[in-house]
């Protein structure tokens, strides 16, 4: 399988076989990501890290990945400091980075920005989130986390919890989990239910998702609880927001009813969805999940720049 020069824009651009390949490759990167081994496979390579909106966790994860591979990172973390502020188009910024580096990571507030960037760059584009749009490396690290912990994704009972309506990363995840034959349970407030198109997409892939608002019941035989942040700005008033947020608090009391092997995941940053008391339980996997961003991004950077271990 050859990924050299490929853009990583949307998880839907990849077949299941290709995703498997990336996940297997990521496994080989874990010890290097921890700093236990040393490789310099991307020595002399330069990654442009263009963050047109801040996302500290994703940016650090990409930068760590590139550094662990012996490569270097140029770019910016804050759009106020860039020429974009002076009115430069995205396409011009991309052309510049294309001339200065071997791959580009882009985070941008406009939907479709990464796809557009790919039209103006010869070197690979890695989408680190475009507006409310796609965030394929998050999706891949989520899959990697489940497969690492559970050995397989097929038949795993996965609860997707929270804002299922607006959170498009959770839509990609639902798609990818369906591709792998996971059993999906959607738990959300009535007003934030999974859109019909996404449900239909899952069905087309052979999964029959269940929807419920009762988390306590759903959690009893679930293998994975994937919580997402409910964003305050989606709600007309603070009272409604507080009511919805309070509905699904994950704490030790809730987890008493859970399957012992349940893992709790969250893309972070969390607000109040998960009580810090859960951090000390064996259910908590979200920090490890965040770490998994590094080996997965190492694998992607290695693959698209055509360097193999």
């Amino acid at each position: 399988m050859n990924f050299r020069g490929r853009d990583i824009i949307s998880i839907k651009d990849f077949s299941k076989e290709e995703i498997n390949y990336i996940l297997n490759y990521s496994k080989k990167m874990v010890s290097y990501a921890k700093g236990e081994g040393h490789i310099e496979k991307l020595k002399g390579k330069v990654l442009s890290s263009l963050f047109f909106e801040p996302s500290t966790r994703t940016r650090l994860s990409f930068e760590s990945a590139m550094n662990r591979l012996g490569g270097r990172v140029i770019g910016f973390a804050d759009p106020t400091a860039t020429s974009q502020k002076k009115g430069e188009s995205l396409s011009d910024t991309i052309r510049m980075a294309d001339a200065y580096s071997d791959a580009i990571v882009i985070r941008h507030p406009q939907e479709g920005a990464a796809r557009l960037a790919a039209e103006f760059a010869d070197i690979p584009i890695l989408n680190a989130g475009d507006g409310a749009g796609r965030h394929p490396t998050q999706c891949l690290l989520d899959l990697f986390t489940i497969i690492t912990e559970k050995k397989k994704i097929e038949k795993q009972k996965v609860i997707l919890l929270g804002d299922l309506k607006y959170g498009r990363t959770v839509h990609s995840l639902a798609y990818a989990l369906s591709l792998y034959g996971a059993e999906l349970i959607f738990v959300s407030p009535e007003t934030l239910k999974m859109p019909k198109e996404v449900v239909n997409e899952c069905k087309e892939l052979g999964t029959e998702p269940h929807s419920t608002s009762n988390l306590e019941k759903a959690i009893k035989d679930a293998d994975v609880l994937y919580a997402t942040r409910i964003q305050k700005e989606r709600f007309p008033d603070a009272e409604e927001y507080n009511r919805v947020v309070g509905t699904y608090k994950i704490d030790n009391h809730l987890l008493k009813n859970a399957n012992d092997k349940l893992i709790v995941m969250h893309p972070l940053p969390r607000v109040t969805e998960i009580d810090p008391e859960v951090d000390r339980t064996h259910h908590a996997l979200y920090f490890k999940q965040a770490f998994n961003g590094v080996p997965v991004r190492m694998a992607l950077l290695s693959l698209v720049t055509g360097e193999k271990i």
Partner: protein
Amino acid sequence: MKELKIPLIKSGTVIDHIAAGNAVKVLRILGIPKTHSSTVSVAMNVRSRLGKKDIVKVENREIDPYEVDKIALIAPKATINIIRNYEVSEKHKVELPDEIVGITHCSNPTCVSNYNEPVESRFIVLSKDPPRIKCYYCEREPEDIAERII
């Protein structure tokens, strides 16, 4: 009821088999009456073998293939008849291409294609009949295609 007769035209274009009620949208796509002074006749709710349909006749103007693509977005079953000297000299069905460039804007205000970038709007055709398209950039389906045709 007898089928409504539209006078024969000497030269121009007859757009037939427009789904009933859509003739006005087709006129708008063709920029009629704003940008053209041709005589135009419209027949709506005409009975035919396949149910009711609309027909548009435009005198002294042969519509070009670019306009045909636009019509396909609104009236996927339409046929285009080019009339020369009272006879049908060309006849073709409209067909949506697999990709549409520059015909309609993306309805998503946060889509990158609506910003100051040197690209045309671009859509992937998901289904030709009924017409369903998806933005190449943001992957959203526009809400009302007819409203957004350029």
